[in-house]
């Protein structure tokens, strides 16, 4: 025992000495997201999340410091994001890249970081197979499959939906989302009677023609996937304006349609919506309540956090973990990946972990319902599914099962 204590002391002393031996270092990281244009609010929200984490955890890096250089990816496609990444890596010499709202942004960066071996922490981009494109990427956000399958099963088993119409924004995450939904829904005996592509992701369309079409099919449920951002409020309002609830059609979807930042603007239209998602700001955990409080203190009570903000926050937590692992030495991809594969964190959204195999996130998915309380709309968790993995990669469907680098 004595020997053990002595050895421990030596070990501790040694650790302290080595820590002291390393010099204070500034870690430069690049943050790429849409800061202007149609998706600016997403980029700004993600940046708020990241900055909040940095503010609350200043001491976590010891004497090392971190400098975040923000670049605007402007449009959804690859070119601008990629030019920003190239410049960040080669000129600013950043050691890690993070941010990335749109999938094509993340995809375009992949070949670049494969060359430079720069680690990437994806805070949002949702197309399922993205981590397969580079061994240097981890993702802390979500995949469409996580919420999609669960809401599909829930609809068939617990919401009395025999038939459903699925409306989706016509782009890969949208297709991922309805494929996941169909997988879950039809697996439990439901039937998807119509799939309606509702325009591309660039613009918020008038949803009326699509919802009218859905209405004319008389399903029990209408599953809707639209990207986070501008679309959510329009979905709820159209649903209400067309009196679809009266017609006996239930609106369900992933939590993108009840995004916290959009929720209050939806008005009574949103009451009763059932969604599956990895986060909403009304989660009861202590971590979340502290997080929401800190967020509102920082950005004002009228600027609530949402899952995009949490993506930024958790992403920055992962970045910190990687920097701590480097501890004064250069932050290589090897160090970062070693630290982040299997990394666990008590996030506002609940416990999360990076799957060491797929480098994708494992997290809880919550079934929630929107209710009105004291003049405000809130979400109530009805059911929690723990440690949900990405089904697409588990089942090795299409590109999800392939190594793409």
């Amino acid at each position, binding site marked *: 025992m004595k020997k053990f204590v002595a050895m421990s002391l030596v070990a501790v002393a040694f650790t302290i000495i080595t820590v002291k031996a390393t010099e204070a270092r500034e870690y430069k990281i690049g943050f790429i997201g849409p800061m202007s244009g149609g998706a600016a609010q997403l980029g700004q929200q993600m940046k708020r999340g990241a900055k909040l984490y940095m503010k609350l955890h200043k001491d976590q890096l010891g004497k090392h410091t971190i400098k975040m250089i923000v670049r605007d990816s402007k449009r959804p496609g690859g070119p601008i994001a990629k030019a920003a990444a190239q410049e960040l890596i080669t000129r600013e010499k950043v050691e890690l890249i993070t941010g990335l709202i749109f999938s094509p942004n993340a995809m375009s960066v992949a070949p670049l970081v494969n060359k430079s071996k720069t680690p990437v922490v994806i805070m949002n981009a949702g197309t399922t197979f993205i981590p397969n494109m580079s061994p240097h990427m981890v993702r802390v956000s979500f995949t469409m499959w996580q919420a999609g399958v669960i809401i599909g099963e829930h609809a068939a088993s617990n919401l009395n939906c025999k038939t459903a119409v699925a409306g989706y924004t016509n782009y890969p995450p949208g297709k991922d989302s309805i494929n996941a939904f169909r997988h879950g829904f039809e697996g439990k005996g439901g039937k998807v009677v119509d799939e309606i592509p*509702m325009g591309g992701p660039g613009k918020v369309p008038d949803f009326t023609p699509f919802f009218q079409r859905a209405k004319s099919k008389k399903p029990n449920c209408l599953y809707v996937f639209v990207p986070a951002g501008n679309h959510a409020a329009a979905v709820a309002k159209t649903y209400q304006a067309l009196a679809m609830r009266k017609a006996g059609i239930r609106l369900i979807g992933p939590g993108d349609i009840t995004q916290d930042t959009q929720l209050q603007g939806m008005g009574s239209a949103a009451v009763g919506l059932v969604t599956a998602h990895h986060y909403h700001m009304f989660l009861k955990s202590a971590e979340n309540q502290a997080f929401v409080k800190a967020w509102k203190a920082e950005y004002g009570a009228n600027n609530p956090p949402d899952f995009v903000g949490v993506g930024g926050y958790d992403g920055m937590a992962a970045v910190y973990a990687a920097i701590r692992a480097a501890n004064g030495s250069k932050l290589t991809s090897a160090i970062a990946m070693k630290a982040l594969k299997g990394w666990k964190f008590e996030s506002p959204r609940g416990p999360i972990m990076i799957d060491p195999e797929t480098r994708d996130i494992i997290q809880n998915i919550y079934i929630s319902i929107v209710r009105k309380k004291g003049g405000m709309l809130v979400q109530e968790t009805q059911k929690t599914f723990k440690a949900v993995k990405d089904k697409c990669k588990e089942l090795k469907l299409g590109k999800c099962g392939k190594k793409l680098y």
Partner: protein
Amino acid sequence: MSPFLNEISTVLVFGLAYAMLLFIISVGLSITMGLMGFANLAHGSFAMMGGYVTVTLVTQSGVPFAAALLISFVAIALLSIPFERFLYRHLYRRSELDQVLLTIGLVFASIAGVTFIWGPDPQLIQMPNYLKGSVDLGFNTFPKYRIFMIIAGAMIVAGLFYGLERTKIGAQIRAAVDNRTMAESVGINTDRLFTWTFALGSGMAALGGGLGIQILGGIKPVFAFEYLVIFLIVVAVGGMGNIRGTFFAALILGIIDFAGKFYFPEGGAFVIFAVTILVLLIRPQGLLGKN
């Protein structure tokens, strides 16, 4: 209730409501282009600013929705006057390319400008109670707001036609669209006419911007650019400077767009562009345009 009547009425009512919106916003652009020969790509910016004024009045100052629409009409009409006087006027005789450059510059600056003030989030609006909910007509139910759009649109169209056909200033505008030199030679002050029609057109755009908030999912900075395409299409299909033509074009495109998305959602926006191409190839000057 027959499913056929249901479908037909769905397409017509929703299509008509959208058509009214298209007309209200596009008519100003049509007049500007027909009367002054000016390619005003910043027309959508005035519509967008109208939307923001409406939202701000309703949500911040508690002004009733209808009053807010009127105020934003007047405000943007007035705001557009200095633009016409100090910017546009210099370019009436310059090339189309210069006009494109200036007005796209304005679009960029206005998008940035409203983001500085209101931020990038879409601004939403709560409707007054009398416009909430829907009306059940037996064979079909329609949102009250769409019915309101159609009625308001019809009144505006009627007012505009009356103004142009029966008033002196309307006659002057028609004369000037038809032949500017001739109009000037009979003593019409085309300079002042330009200013007023420009203000009127911008005000109409603002009205459309305000009316559109509810059905376009909120007003946001990129509005100025996103909907420009569709306004230009309406003007081109209708025939520049022709108000009747603009109305018919809005009607046809509004209804076809709705029907296309309703029956053929896979096609997305394809249908409306295909129709546009077809019409313009057969009648390059637009449905009712001058040859």
